[in-house]
C-alpha cells in the first residue's frame, strides 16, 4: 500500500510567495516532488519484482511437482502440483505465429504510409491503423471467439488439406478452431498498430539525401526502399517487432476468450488446446484458493520477467540506434 499513502504527491499548489521570497524554497519543494515521482516509478518497478517473487516463493515451497517441467496445473490437489511447461510453450508459440504474420504486413503498412500513400492521405491513414490499437482487448476477444473462430474453420480445412504435410498445419483432432493458430492470428491483428507505428517513425527518419541520391541515379521507388530505406530501418523494425512480441506475450483477455485450454504440448498448431500464462491466470483465478493464487502469481512472475527482457532489449536497440543515427546525420 506504499503507493497511495505516503508517496502519491498532490499536484503542487501555485501558492503566492511573499514579496520578499526569492522562491528558493518553492524550487526545492518542486524539485523534490518531481524527483520524488521519478523515484516512485523506480520503486514501483522494484516492488513489483519483490512482491511477486515473495508470493511466488510461498507457492513454490509447497509445489510437489517441478515448476518448470510439470504438465499440470492443480494447486488445490493433495499434494499440490503445478508447472509452467505448457504455458511457456503456448505463450511463445502463439506469439511467434503472431510475429510471423504481423511483422511483414506491418512493415508493408509502414512503408505504405511513409513512402507510398498520397501525401495528404498519409496522416489520416496512419490514424486508421492507430485505431486498431484503441480497441479494447476484450472486444477483440469476443470478436475472435464469436466471429473469427467459425470463420477460420474453412481456412483450417484448407491448410490441413494442402499444407498438412508440414506437420505444423496437420489437424489431428476434430473441433472448432479455438487453437493456438487462431490465437496467433488474433494477436497479429492486435500488435499490428505498435509494430507499424514504430517502423513508420524509423522509415520517416531516413536521411532524404540517401533517398534522393538513389533516385537521381535512376532507381525505381522499390530500389530506393531496398537500398536506402530498409537498411537504415532494419534495427528499428527489429525493435518494433520485439515491442510487438512483448505485447503478444502478455495479452490476456483475447486469448482467454478464444482458446479452449488444455494441458498438452503439441506443434499441431490447428488442434484446439494449449494455454498461455495470461490466459491460464484468467481462467484459473476464480476457483483458486490462496495457494492457487500464489501459484498463479508465480506464473505471472515468469511472464513479467519474459516481457521485461523482451521490452528491455527492444528499448536498448532503439537507444543504441538513436546514438548511431545521430552521429550519422
Amino acid at each position, binding site marked *: 500500500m506504499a*503507493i*497511495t499513502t505516503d508517496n*502519491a*504527491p498532490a*499536484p*503542487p499548489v501555485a501558492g503566492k510567495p511573499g514579496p520578499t521570497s526569492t522562491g528558493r524554497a518553492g*524550487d526545492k519543494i*518542486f524539485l523534490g516532488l*518531481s524527483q520524488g*515521482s*521519478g523515484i516512485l*516509478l523506480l520503486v*514501483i518497478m522494484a516492488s*513489483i519484482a519483490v*512482491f*511477486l517473487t515473495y508470493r511466488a516463493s510461498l507457492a513454490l515451497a509447497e509445489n510437489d511437482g517441478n515448476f518448470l517441467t510439470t504438465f499440470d496445473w492443480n494447486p488445490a490437489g493433495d499434494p499440490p502440483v503445478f508447472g509452467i511447461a505448457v504455458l511457456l510453450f503456448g505463450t511463445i508459440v502463439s506469439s511467434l505465429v503472431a510475429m510471423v504474420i504481423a511483422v*511483414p*504486413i506491418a512493415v*508493408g*503498412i509502414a*512503408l*505504405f504510409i511513409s513512402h*507510398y500513400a498520397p501525401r495528404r492521405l498519409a496522416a489520416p491513414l496512419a*490514424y486508421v491503423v492507430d*485505431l*486498431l490499437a*484503441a*480497441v*479494447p*482487448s*476484450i472486444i477483440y*476477444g*469476443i470478436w475472435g471467439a*464469436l*466471429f473469427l473462430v467459425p470463420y477460420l474453420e474453412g481456412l483450417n480445412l484448407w491448410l490441413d488439406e494442402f499444407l498438412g504435410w508440414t506437420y505444423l498445419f496437420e489437424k489431428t483432432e476434430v473441433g472448432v478452431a479455438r487453437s493456438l493458430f487462431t490465437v496467433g492470428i488474433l494477436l497479429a491483428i492486435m500488435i499490428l498498430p505498435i509494430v507499424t507505428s514504430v517502423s513508420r517513425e524509423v522509415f520517416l527518419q531516413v536521411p532524404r539525401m*540517401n533517398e534522393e*541520391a*538513389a533516385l537521381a*541515379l*535512376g*532507381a525505381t521507388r*522499390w*530500389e530506393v*526502399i531496398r*537500398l536506402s530505406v530498409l537498411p537504415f530501418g532494419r534495427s528499428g523494425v527489429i525493435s518494433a517487432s520485439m*515491442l510487438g512480441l*512483448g*505485447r503478444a*506475450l*502478455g495479452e*490476456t*483477455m483475447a486469448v482467454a476468450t478464444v482458446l479452449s485450454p488444455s494441458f498438452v504440448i503439441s506443434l499441431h498448431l490447428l488442434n484446439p488446446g494449449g494455454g498461455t500464462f*495470461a490466459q491460464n491466470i484468467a481462467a484459473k483465478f476464480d476457483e483458486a484458493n490462496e495457494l492457487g*493464487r500464489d501459484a498463479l*502469481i508465480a506464473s*505471472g512472475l515468469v*511472464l513479467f520477467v519474459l*516481457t521485461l527482457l*523482451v521490452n528491455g532489449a527492444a*528499448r536498448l536497440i532503439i537507444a543504441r540506434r538513436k546514438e548511431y543515427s545521430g552521429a550519422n546525420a
Partner: protein
Amino acid sequence: MSNVIQDATPAQAARGLSKGTLSQRHLPRWAPAGFAAVSIALGVAVGAGAGLHSRIQWGLIAAALFVVVSYVVTSAVENRRQAKDRLATSVVWVCFLLAVVPLLSLIWTTVGRGVKVLDGYFLTHSMAGVPGFETGGGVYHALIGTLEQVGLATLVSAPIGLLTAVYLVEYGKGALAKAVTFFVDVMTGIPSIVAGLFILSIMLIAGLAPSGLMGALALAILMIPVVVRSTEEMLKLVPNELREAALALGVPKWRVILKVVIPTAIGGITTGVMLAIARIAGETAPIMLLVFGSQLINTNPFEGAQSSLPFYIWEQYRVGSEASYDRAWAAALVLIAFVMILNLVARGIARWKAPKTGR
C-alpha cells in the same frame, strides 16, 4: 551503408541505360486502376463461381490477382525492374487493405450486434435479479464502476506522470534520469495481468478485500508510463526562448514551469491523459483479479465488489447464452463508443491547442 548505395545504384542505373531507358515502352498512368478493376471483376467471378460465401474471401482472391496481374503485365510491357517496383507497390497497398479489413469487420460486427439490446433501459438498469441466460438487465452498474475506477486511476497517475515528465524534461540529468527514462519505457510493456497480480500480492499480504480502489491502483500502474511519455514529448516542444525569457525576468524556476511551460503545453498534456484513459478503460484483467465483479449497483469504489464495462463483457460472454451474448455486444458497443470518442476528442484538442514550434 552509404557505401553500398553508392556502389550498387550506378551499376543498376547503367544496366537500365544499356537497354535504352529513353525508348522504353510505358504503361499508361491509369494502369494500376485498370489492374484493380480487372482483378476485382475476376475475384468476384472466381468467388461466385467457386461458391464461396464470404465476401472477404472474394476480396482476398481479388487482392492476390491484383498483385499477380500487375507484375505479369508490367514485366511483359515494360521491364523486370519496373515490374518489381510495381510488385512492391501493389504488395504494400494490399498490406494496408489487409489491416483495414479486421478493423472494419470488428466495428461492423460490434455495431450490428450491439444495437439489438442497446437502449435507454439497458443503460439505466443493473443486472440485479436477472438470470444470466435470460433477456433483460443492463449495464448501469458496470458503467458506474468503470467511471469510478478510471477516475481514481487518473487522480493517482496524472499528477505522478506529470511530475515525472517535468523532472525528466526540466531537471533530468545524470544516472537517475536515465534510469527513469528506461524504466518508463519498460513499464509501458508491463502486461495488464501482471499489474493486477502485483496489487493482488499486496492485497494477500495486507489482507485487503477486493474493491474498486484496488483495480484503480492497478490501472494507475498501467497509465503512469503512458502519461509520462506523452507529457514528456509535449514539454519538449515548448520553445526554450519562453523559459529563458521568464528566467531572465528573475522568476524562480518552479514558477516558470507552472506558469509558462505547463500552460503552453497544456493542450498536448490533456490529449496524452485522455489517450491514456482510453487505453485503461478497456482493461479487463486487473478488474477481474482485484474488483471481483458484481451484479449490483455499488457506488462506493472504496468498499465491496464492483463491476466495470470490460469485465461485464467478459462475464456475459462466459454465461454463453444468446441473451448474454447480445448484452456482451451491446456493452462492447458502449465501451468502443466511449473509447473512440475519447480518442477523437483527444486528437481534436491536440490539433486545436498544438504549441507553435518556432517555424
